[in-house]
């Protein structure tokens, strides 16, 4: 209870800082705070310095991951989603400027030493990537991959490590008899399963999937998504799913964050984001997806902003149908539409303020 109270205070303070005046209006759903927070980011920014300019790959991001939930970060190419993922794991290249706070189970990831980080990765946080074809060492058998990963974190015999590897393969639907095979003897879907098995062998708390199903075929993709969902339920994983594919997002997500121009412009539960999108970009993106029910093509005109020289105001203002002068001047504050649904849009903020005045 105490923890929850602190959390509520923190959320309020956060909201005040962001300039939202509708804290009281936000209805706090108790279920939201009954879950264990695995990772939370506060005011997180990542800037890459290149020779001539600073690329603001992600800016002032706030998000929370809970146990047993899939949080999907969705956006188009070069919107900063992969950078955000790398930042959360503290896997950014040297010389990158990261400000803000990332708390993983009570520890600030940004201040951990290299060795502490290494221990964290693999044991508590696991990553799976796009393109499983190149993610396994071609000269090592699958068994050796498991032995290496396990021995990096605990004193364990080769035999025992192999046994645990077999069990992990078992859990993801790869016959354990193939432990002695080399990566090139597996198909793409099988390799992605092996990657997941390698990620799960320590029973981590957080699984980060960076476009892990992108290069797979529809059927295999659906199989892997199904697997990820069932593993989430079985192990109580928190999953951060970074993807550009809205179909995939809808398939497995509990929460969704939409990134645009380095900002998380809208986040909420999957239902909120897909059924009641508040940000014009989210709406545009949803409309541009061709799905089985699509009868007419629609799209968003214009191009995404260059993160090296972002516009001063809302990054979407240039492409937005509903932009006003204010949109070009300042980045919109966070508006809370529910305990989970938040959006950065001047129009929404103005609408909320009007509504309150009317009351």
């Amino acid at each position, binding site marked *: 209870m105490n923890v929850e109270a602190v959390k509520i205070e923190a959320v309020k303070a956060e909201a005040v800082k962001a300039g939202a005046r509708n804290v009281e209006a936000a209805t706090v759903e108790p279920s939201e705070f009954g879950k264990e927070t695995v990772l939370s980011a506060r005011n997180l920014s990542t800037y890459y310095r290149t020779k001539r300019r600073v690329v603001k790959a992600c800016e002032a991001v706030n998000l929370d991951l809970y146990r047993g939930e899939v949080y999907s970060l969705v956006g188009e190419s070069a919107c900063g989603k992969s950078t955000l993922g790398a930042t959360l794991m503290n896997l950014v290249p040297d010389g990158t400027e990261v400000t803000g706070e990332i708390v993983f189970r009570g520890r600030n990831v940004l201040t951990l030493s290299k060795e502490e980080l290494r221990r964290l*990765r693999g044991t508590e946080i696991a990553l799976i990537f796009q393109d499983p074809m190149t993610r396994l060492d*071609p*000269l*090592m058998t699958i068994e050796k991959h498991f032995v*290496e*990963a396990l021995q990096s*974190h605990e004193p364990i015999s080769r035999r025992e490590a192999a046994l645990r590897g077999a069990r992990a393969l078992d859990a993801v639907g790869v016959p354990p008899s193939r432990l002695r095979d080399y990566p090139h*003897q*597996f*198909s793409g879907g099988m390799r992605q399963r092996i990657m997941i098995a390698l990620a799960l062998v320590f029973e981590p708390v957080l699984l980060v999937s960076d476009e892990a199903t992108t290069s797979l075929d529809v059927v295999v993709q659906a199989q892997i998504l199904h697997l990820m969902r069932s593993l989430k339920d079985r192990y109580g994983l928190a999953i951060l799913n970074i993807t550009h594919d809205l179909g995939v997002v809808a398939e497995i997500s509990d929460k969704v964050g939409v990134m645009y121009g380095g900002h998380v412009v809208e986040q909420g539960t999957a239902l909120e984001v897909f059924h009641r999108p508040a940000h014009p970009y989210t709406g545009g993106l949803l409309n541009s997806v061709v799905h089985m029910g699509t009868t007419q093509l629609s799209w968003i005109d214009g191009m995404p902003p260059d993160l090296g020289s972002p516009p001063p105001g809302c990054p979407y203002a240039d492409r937005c149908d509903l932009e006003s002068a204010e949109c070009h001047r300042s980045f919109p504050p966070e508006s809370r539409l529910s305990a989970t649904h938040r959006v950065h849009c001047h129009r929404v903020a103005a609408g909320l303020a009007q509504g309150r005045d009317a009351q």
Partner: protein
Amino acid sequence: MAGRGKPSSLLNYIVLRLLLTLPMLFILLTLVFVLLRVAPGDPAAAMLGAHASVEVIDELRERMGLNRPLVVQYFDFIGDTLRGDLGKSFRFEVPVWDLVKHRLTATLELVFFAFLIAVVIGLAVGIFSANRRGTVWDLGGNVYGILTYAFPIFWLGIMCQLFFAVKLGWLPTSGRFTGFLSPPAMHTGLYVVDSLIEGRFDKLVTSLRYLALPASVLGVYISGIFARMVRTNMLQTLKSDYVQAARARGVKERWVSLRHGLKNALVPVVTVLGLQFALLLGGAVLTETTFSWPGLGSFLVGRLLERDYPAVQGIVTVFALGVVIMSIVIDIVNALIDPRIRY
């Protein structure tokens, strides 16, 4: 979907690989033949010099079989070589193989120790600078690579003679063995090994002392290039996706660099090593000349200067065989390292 690999016989592969080198051997032999019999006009005249009379030259042509059609000469040459007959030296009038064999062992000894030195230094410097990429150490490795490459090997040899042998007097300037001791009895032809077989420690030390300078010069010369290859290939594999994935799994950095980085870098490096072997043989010619090492290389230079073409032909054929054998060894080693190579 890639099926389960069927284990097939490595022996079959080796046999096949040997068969495949036949064309290469054939082409090299043809090259040798073309170089020495076709291009220069009349070898007999060249061998005897400008002042020889026509009769003498004709007699020599007759004796060497040069008056027969080229095609016949060519097939004779190929046939003789395949039978192990390398021809007869014009100058010494003995079979070339008799002249070549103990010089070959001298060269092998030199090349082997140089190779050893090159691999040790090359691996050490390469791994070291790859792991410390972008630091002063890396720069040092880079400078080492450029300098060892830029020094002409014979010049480096002379400078080392002047410094270590003449100025400091630590090591003998040239030759393979001292005149005060009789060389070890011939078993393998490698003095170091033969000394051990004979159990004579003094002979071992002497042969190592004579070997030290030429082998080090040749080894250092190759080590620079080798270090660069190791570094480049390691950096490349360290950037690869599976290395990133291993890091993300929290695998210790030292394991990442050695197990994934080095092992995967070895495949191209071993291939390059094979090519280095050719470089090593070229370097051996210069080193042997500089240090008066009684090897095949310096012998070749001597035969060339004396225009003893039959001997030259024999020696070059031996070099060609060495290259062919090395290429087979490299392929087999790679097939053993890399499970993806299907035999």
